[in-house]
C-alpha cells in the first residue's frame, strides 16, 4: 500500500469535559473510498470536524499528505486540499446555486470556471437550477449542491458527512453513484461518514466501525458487510 493521503493517529477530541473521540486511528490511501459507520452520537461527525481542526484534537496527530495539520487553522487546512460537505447539507438558502458554488472555490482562490464545468457534468440538474435560490431546491438537489460546492475547491480529499441523510432511497442511490463515478473517473479520495451502512459499505473500498468514540472494527467493505456484529447492529439484523 502506498503512503496514506490521510493518517489519523490516536486522536482524542473533547467537548468541554466530554471525550467524544477516544484515541481514534485510521488511514485513507490516495484514490480510496473509505467509510466510517456508526450509530448516532458515536463521534463520526466529530472525527470529520476534527480533521478540519474545528474542534481541535486534544491528543494525537492528523497527518495529511505527509504534513502534520493538527494545529493548522481551519481555512489553511481547507486550502491545503481537504474539502468537506457538512452534515445536513447547509447550503446558503437565499443565495443562488451559482453563488453557492462560487463560495466553494473562494477560500482556495482558484479560478471557478473549470470546477463549475466539472460539477455540472457530474450533476446536470444543478446546471438547470443554476440561477435558482438554493433554499428552493429539493433535498436531493441540495445534497448535490453541497457536494458540488465542496468539489469547487478542487480538493484531493473529500469529506462527506451523511450525504444520504433524509433523502428518499432512490435519491440517495443517485448520490452514491455520483460519488463512485467521481472516484473512478478522477481518482478523488473520499472519506464518507454514513448511518446508511449497507449502501456505504457497498460503495467503499474499506470501512471502519466507530462505537462511542472508539474504532471497534475495520476491513474491506465486503468483509464488514459479512460480519455478524455489523449486520446485527447496523443492517437491521436478520
Amino acid at each position: 500500500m502506498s503512503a496514506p493521503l490521510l493518517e489519523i493517529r490516536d486522536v482524542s477530541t473533547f467537548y468541554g469535559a466530554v471525550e467524544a473521540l477516544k484515541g481514534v486511528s485510521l488511514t485513507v490511501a490516495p484514490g480510496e473510498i473509505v467509510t466510517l459507520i456508526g450509530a448516532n452520537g458515536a463521534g463520526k461527525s466529530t472525527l470529520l470536524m476534527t480533521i478540519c481542526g474545528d474542534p481541535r484534537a486534544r491528543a494525537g496527530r492528523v497527518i495529511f499528505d505527509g504534513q502534520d495539520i493538527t494545529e493548522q487553522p481551519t481555512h489553511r487546512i481547507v486550502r491545503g486540499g481537504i474539502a468537506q460537505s457538512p452534515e445536513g447539507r447547509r447550503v446558503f438558502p437565499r443565495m443562488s446555486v451559482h453563488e453557492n458554488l462560487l463560495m466553494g472555490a473562494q477560500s482556495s482562490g482558484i479560478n471557478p470556471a473549470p470546477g463549475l464545468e466539472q460539477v455540472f457534468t457530474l450533476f446536470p440538474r444543478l446546471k438547470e437550477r443554476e440561477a435558482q435560490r438554493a433554499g428552493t431546491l429539493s433535498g436531493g438537489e441540495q445534497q448535490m449542491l453541497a457536494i458540488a460546492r465542496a468539489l469547487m475547491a478542487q480538493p484531493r480529499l473529500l469529506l462527506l458527512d451523511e450525504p444520504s441523510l433524509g433523502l428518499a432511497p432512490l435519491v440517495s442511490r443517485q448520490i452514491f453513484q455520483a460519488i463512485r463515478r467521481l472516484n473512478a473517473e478522477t481518482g478523488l479520495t473520499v472519506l464518507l461518514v454514513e448511518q446508511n451502512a449497507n449502501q456505504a459499505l457497498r460503495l467503499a473500498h474499506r470501512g471502519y466501525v466507530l462505537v462511542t468514540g472508539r474504532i471497534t472494527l475495520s476491513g474491506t467493505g465486503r468483509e464488514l458487510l459479512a460480519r455478524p456484529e455489523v449486520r446485527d447492529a447496523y443492517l437491521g439484523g436478520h
Partner: protein
Amino acid sequence: MRPAGTRHLPFGAALRDAGLAALIAAGLFLPMVGLRTDVDPNGALYLRTRWTDVLLLMAIVFAGRFLMRLWQEWKAGRQGPSLGKRFAGPLSRSGRLAAPALLLFAVLLPAIPGIGRYELDLGILVLTYVMLGWGLNIVVGLAGLLDLGYVAFYAVGAYSYALLAQNFGLSFWVCLPLAGILAAFWGVLLGFPVLRLRGDYLAIVTLGFGEIIRLVLLNWVSLTGGPNGIAGIPRPTFFGLSFSLGGGPGTFAGFFGLEPSPTHRVVFLYYLILALALLTNWVTLRLRRQPLGRAWEAMREDEIACRSLGINITVTKLTAFALGAMFGGFAGAFFATRQAFISPESFTFIESAIILAIVVLGGLGSQLGVAIAALVLIGGFEVFRDLQEWRMLVFGGAMVLIMIWKPRGLVGSRTPSVALGERRTISAAMVAEGRG
C-alpha cells in the same frame, strides 16, 4: 372548499378575536390613559379619570382588529396569488425605475424652484440617515451581525473630526478619511471580543459598546468637554474657499463673484452628504459582487457552512465591522462639521435604534429599501412635527401596519450578485430561513 368569492366570512370568529384585542387594549389603557394625576386649583394632587378616552381607544382597537381579520379572511378566501405576490412583479419593475428616479430627484433637489433652506436641511438630515442606514446595512443586512451600538461609530467619527480640527487645525478633507479610519479601528476593536458571539448575545454586547462610548465621551471632560460638548467646530470649505458671508476674495461667493448667501453652504453640505452616501452605496454594491461581499452574505446564511468551506470567519467578520464603522465615521465627521457643535446627547441609544429601524423596515440587505425607509421615517418625523406628541402614535401605527403587510421589510427580496441571463429577484418569504 367553496369557490372564491362565495365563501362567507367568519364574522363570529372575527368578532371574538376583536373582542379579545379590545380587552387587551383595555388592560393596557386603563392604567395608562384612564387614570391621570392632576393638580387641582388648591395645588393638591388628585386623580382624574378619563373613562371615555379608554372606551374610545378600545373601540378603535376593536374596529381595527375586526376589519383586519375580515380583510385577511377575504384575502385567504380568494384563490388568486397573495397580495405580496401580485405586487411583487410591478414592484420590482417599478423598483428598477424607482432607484434612478430617486437619485435624479436627489441630485436636482436644490435646483427645484420653491426648495428653500428648510427643505435642504431636511434633505441633508434624510441623506445622513440614508448613509448611516447603508453603512449599518453592511453589518446587519449583508453580514447578518446584529449591531445595536452603531451610533458609537457615528460618535467616534464626529469627535475625531471635532478634536482633530480644533486641536491640530486640520481641514475637513484631511479629517474625513482620518475619522473613517479611526471609526474602522474601533469597529475592529469591537469585532475582536464578539467574534464568537451571535444573535442576541452579539446584540447585547454591541448595545453595551455603544453606551460605553457615550459614557466615556460624557465623562472624559478634559478631552471631550463632557456634557458641554464641543462648540465652534470648523465648517467645511470648498477647496479652501470658506462660506463666510463677508464676500472677500477668500470666500466662495467672492471667488465666483456671487452674492454672498447662507444657502451656498447648505447646498454644498447637501451635495457633500449626497456624495458620501452614494460612495457608501457604490462601495457596498461593488463589494457584493466581490468574494468578500459574497462571504458576508454566506456568513449571514450559515456560519458553520462557511467554516467548512475554509472561509476565514475572523477576517470576514472584522472587515464587515470595520467597513460599516468606517461609513458611520464618515457620517459622524459630516455631522460635526454641519452642526458645528456636538455633545454626547446626539449619540444616544435611540439613534442606534432609529438607524436599525431604517435597515429593518427597508428590508435587510436592500439598498433601495433602506433609502426609502430613511426618507419615510426621518422625513415623516418632520412632516408630522405639527402633531407633536401624536407623532409617536403615528409611527407606532405605521410600524404595526408594516409588520402586517410587509413583514420582511419594504423591499424584502434579494437580487443575485452574479446573474446568468435575466436577473430574477426572489421574495425572501418564499425561502425558508436558516435551514439548508
